[in-house]
C-alpha cells in the first residue's frame, strides 16, 4: 500500500500544471528532499512495473506525470481529432479582451463577457496565446494575463500597438438608439449633438 507521503505526492503531481521541485514537496510533506526523491523513484518504478499508460518523470528541475511514450499515437490522435481545430467565438472574444485590456485577471474578463472564462482561459494558456504576466497587487493576488509572442507571430504583428486602435470603435446603430432611449435622451437632439462631436457618424 502506498504510504501517506506517496499518496500526497501522487495527488500533488496530478493537480500541478508545472513540474514540482523536490524541495517544494519536501517542504509540504515535511520530509527531506532526498526522501522525496526516493519515494518518487519508487512510485515511478511501480508504475512501470504495472505497465501504466503514464510515467512519473523528473523533468525541468521537478517531478511531473506524463503520458507513456508507447501510447504517443493514441495521444496524437486525441490531439488531432479530440480538440477543436478552430478557436470558438467565446475563445476568440476572450483572447481579444486579453489583447486589448492586458494585463487583465480572469475575474475582469468574466465581468466584461458576463460569463465564466476559466476553461477558455486555460485553453488559451495551454495553446500558448496568453500567459501570466503579473500578479494583482490587490487582495487575492489574482493572476494577470497578457498575450504572448506566439500570439503576435500568428497574427503577423510586430507589437501590440499594431492592433486596430479602439478609437474608431463605433457601436452599431441599434445599440446607440437603445442606449439613448435608455438614457431618456431625445434622439433627435442627441444624434445632432453626437454628430457634431463625431461619436456616431462612424462607417455604417
Amino acid at each position: 500500500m502506498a504510504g501517506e507521503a506517496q499518496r500526497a505526492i501522487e495527488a500533488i503531481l496530478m493537480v500541478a500544471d508545472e513540474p514540482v521541485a523536490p524541495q517544494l514537496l519536501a517542504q509540504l510533506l515535511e520530509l527531506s528532499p532526498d526522501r522525496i526523491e526516493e519515494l518518487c523513484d519508487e512510485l515511478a518504478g511501480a508504475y512501470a512495473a504495472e505497465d501504466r499508460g503514464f510515467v512519473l518523470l523528473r523533468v525541468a528541475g521537478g517531478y511531473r506525470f506524463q503520458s507513456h511514450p508507447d501510447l504517443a499515437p493514441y495521444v496524437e490522435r486525441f490531439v488531432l481529432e479530440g480538440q477543436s481545430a478552430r478557436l470558438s467565438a467565446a475563445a476568440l472574444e476572450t483572447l481579444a479582451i486579453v489583447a486589448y485590456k492586458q494585463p487583465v485577471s480572469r475575474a475582469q474578463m468574466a465581468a466584461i463577457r458576463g460569463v465564466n472564462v476559466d476553461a477558455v482561459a486555460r485553453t488559451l494558456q495551454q495553446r500558448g496565446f496568453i500567459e501570466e504576466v503579473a500578479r494583482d497587487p490587490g487582495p487575492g493576488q489574482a493572476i494577470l494575463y497578457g498575450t504572448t509572442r506566439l500570439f503576435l507571430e500568428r497574427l503577423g504583428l510586430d507589437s501590440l500597438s499594431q492592433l486596430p486602435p479602439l478609437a474608431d470603435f463605433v457601436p452599431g446603430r441599434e445599440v446607440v438608439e437603445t442606449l439613448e432611449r435608455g438614457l431618456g435622451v431625445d434622439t433627435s437632439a442627441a444624434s445632432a449633438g453626437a454628430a457634431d462631436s463625431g461619436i456616431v457618424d462612424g462607417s455604417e
Partner: protein
Amino acid sequence: MGHEVQTAVFEGPFDLLLHLITRDEVDLWEISLTGIVDAYVAEVEAMAVVDLDAATEFLLIAAILVELKAKRLLPGRDEADIDEEFALYEERDLLLAKLLECKTFRDAGDALARMASAASMSSPRTAGLEPRFLGLVPDLLAGVSVADVHGAFIRASTPKPVPTVDLDHVAPIRISVGEVVDELSASLPARGPITFRALTEGLANRIDVVVRFLAILELYKSGLVDLGQSENFGDLEIRWCADATDTATIGAGA
C-alpha cells in the same frame, strides 16, 4: 420580542416570515403585528445598504398579514358569508404553499452547497498537453486576422441593451380634471340646466368624457351644481346653482 438577529442578512421577505414564524412559534393572531414590523425595521437598520427590493417586498407581505388580521378583528365576522371565509382560507393556503416551496428550495440549496464542498476536496488534473505534442495541435489562429480580433473585442465588450418596455404607443393624458373644472365653472352659469349627454357630445375619445364626468362630480362636491335624474338610467341633468363668489374657491381646490 428580542430575538437575536442571524448573521445572514434576510434576503427575501418569505425567508424572514418563515424565520419569524418557525423560530418564535409566533401566532400572528394573538399578538399585534408591530412585533414583526419592529423586528424587520431593526433588520433594515442593520443593513449597510437598504435593499429596496427586499424592503418593498416585505411591505407586500406585511400588507397581506395586516389585511388577513383586520378581517378577523372586524366585528360581526361570524355571519360573514361563506365565500368571504373561503377567500380568507384560500389566501392563507396560498401563502402557506409559497412558504413551503421557499423552504424546499432553501434546503435543496444547502444540499447543493454540501455537495459542492465535498466535491471541492478533489481537484482535477488540468496540466494538459506535454510540450512535445504542442507542435501537433492545429494552429487555432490559422485564418484569424487582426480585424477578427478587433471585431471580437467589440462583440465582447458591447453592452447588451437591457430589454426595456417601450411605452411610446401609450398616449399621455393631455387634460387634467382641474382644467375642465375651471372651464365648466366659467361656461355652465351662462348655459342654464343641461344634460350630461349634451355637455359631452362632440368629445372624440372616452378619456375626455371621463375627465368631464369627474369634473362634474368635483363641482357637485363643492355644491356648485345640482344633479338630477328623472328616471332610472335617464339623462343626468346638471343645473348651475352657485353665485359668482363661490367659483373662486373651486379654482384653487380642484
